[in-house]
């Protein structure tokens, strides 16, 4: 995945709460066996509405999305993250995220920024003026041309992976010995747990 350190640009002022992953990418787009090209179906039902923010030229190619509470709720489909990435979105700012979707986002180099509702409301105002917002992951800040400055929390491991674009599978495979030790203990104490489909 592509590292993410600083993102600066216009932001799509969506604002909606409970944006579920069926909204981000409807099921009919999930028949693909690839990760590519899902931007075509991204936010399809919202984009069917005239005057929607996604097709507004003012926000074309904006790398930041601002949404309401519980962003990415519902289905675990990682296609939602792939679709957002295909649209060029690298940062989503919202008061809260679903657990599964925020994990999927990070694994694809998208930064979920959690800020209180009043900060999100302020950023929505700035975004609607078409002004640029800057996100600095190292400093954990969001700033605007009006000198607004909001700081956000992020899990240190997620931050590390995002900053360096790390492959988590490779990192864990390097812990193979510890995993093997756990499996050996378990096989001795509770062998039925290790049988699975071989039972």
């Amino acid at each position, binding site marked *: 995945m592509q590292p993410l350190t600083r993102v600066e640009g216009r932001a799509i002022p969506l604002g*909606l*709460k*409970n944006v*579920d992953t*069926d*909204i981000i990418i*409807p*099921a*009919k787009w*999930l*028949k*693909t*066996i*690839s*990760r590519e090209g899902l931007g075509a179906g991204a936010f*399809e*039902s919202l984009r069917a509405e005239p005057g929607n923010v996604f097709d507004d030229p003012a926000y074309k190619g904006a790398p930041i999305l601002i949404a*309401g*509470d*519980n962003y990415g*709720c*519902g*289905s*675990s*489909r*990682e*296609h939602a993250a792939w679709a957002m990435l295909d649209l060029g979105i690298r940062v989503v700012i919202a008061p*809260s995220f*679903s*657990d*599964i*979707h925020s*994990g*999927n986002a990070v*694994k*694809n180099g998208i930064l979920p920024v959690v800020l209180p*509702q009043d900060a999100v409301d302020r950023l929505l105002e700035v975004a609607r003026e078409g002004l640029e917002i800057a996100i600095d992951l190292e400093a954990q800040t969001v700033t605007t041309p009006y000198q607004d400055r909001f700081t956000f929390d992020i*899990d*240190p*491991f997620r931050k590390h992976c995002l900053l360096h674009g790390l492959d*988590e*599978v*490779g990192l*864990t*495979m390097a*812990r193979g010995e*510890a*995993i093997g030790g*756990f*499996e050996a203990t*378990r096989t001795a104490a*509770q062998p*039925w*747990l*290790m*049988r*699975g*489909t*071989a*039972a």
Partner: protein
Amino acid sequence: MASRPRTLYEKIWDAHVVETRDDGTALIYIDRHLVHEVTSPQAFEALKVAGRPVRRPELTLAVPDHNLPTTARIDAKGAPVPIADPESAAQLAALEVNAPAFGIRYIPATAKEQGIVHVVGPEQGFSLPGTTIVCGDSHTACHGGLGALAFGIGTSEVEHVLATQTLLLQQSKPMEVRVEGDLGPGISAKDLILHIIGRIGAAGGSGYVIEYLGAVFQRMTVEERLTVCNMSIEAGARAGLIAPDDTTFAYIKGRPMAPQGAEWDAAVAYWRTLHSDDGAMFAKSVTINAADVEPSVTWGTSPEDVVPIGGRVPSPEDFADESKRVAVQKSLDYMGLVPGTPMTEVPIENVFIGSCTNSRIEDLRAAASILRGRHKAGNVRWAIVVPGSGLVKAQAEDEGLDRIFTDAGFEWREPGCSACLGMNPDKVPPGERCASTSNRNFVGRQGPGARTHLVSPAMAAAAAVTGRLTDVRELV
């Protein structure tokens, strides 16, 4: 020194920590992994590209369900029926090739054991109490009904589990939903979980794992418990748990992949320790009075939009929160509903009985008991029953339930996810309503423009009979 009292969630978590990292994340061992055709192809592809094997193939079970058509799979000559949509066919073919190529047990579409992953796992004895269970599907929470820590994961995590049999996780906070008293006559597990989601909201469980506590859950069958835990994700909780007990053990005993003999006795002895200790601390607690639960129905486009069947369509003004008022208006516009309308006056054109929430044998029996000797109303255009697995289907046919459904004007289908997510050809047309036993009423979930009302199996049957949302207790 006595150890600190722990919740059930903490006990299962502690038993699966391979190592804890300095940053607070833990490497958690995964005991059981379910794979289906939609969220796995990119994971298998990544393994191939990197030349990585599957670490423990016997701990993964693959079965197609999401994309598979629910029409006949074998023709009159006994040959498999090809899948018309080339994209769907390619995705199903990918799983059929990938699973055996990586040494993973694969249940083909034509096998009698095929079904929805969350029906198949418990049915085969693959899902067991105290285990960690994952699947690239958010309704994996379902298996919590057996006392397993079960949750949905994305495709990158599917790849991670295949390669390492672990996940790197931050521990969630334990939350209790305590239900006091008894459910009234004719009130189902689905009514209860919809009521709970209505109370705590679609984000009320975010960051938590919910444990359901109270005698009402102890009296439930395993199938009812699976229904409750299944929808934990609709309250934002990644997982839900009900402590295993004798009911659980009786359900699991003798299933094909369950432990046997001396191992069975050792397993049960361990499973009996899996409950929250007296004095264990929950980070959040919600108490529900069971007597308040009526047959539940959703009116909007979030599973939190729940009212009792005797209630009315709400108005945006009923809500204090500004963003919720905006969302309510948007939902009402999408659903084509006018505030103040009694829910029992909402007409229904489609009925779907199925999904990982409500497609097990007890669900089909509950619906059939209402439909026996009755027929769907004239305005109900399309009514289908999609059993959760081939074994559920066979059991229902042995009991004659299929005849009750077809005599009532329902189509009797092959197992799969079907109209729950509108991915295969089973869709609700734009602008039409569906009384659905599934779990999500999201915009476009059952098809573009489809309007979903979530209900229990008995309530779906009642809506089919009268052609409108109906209090099933009037038909009993």
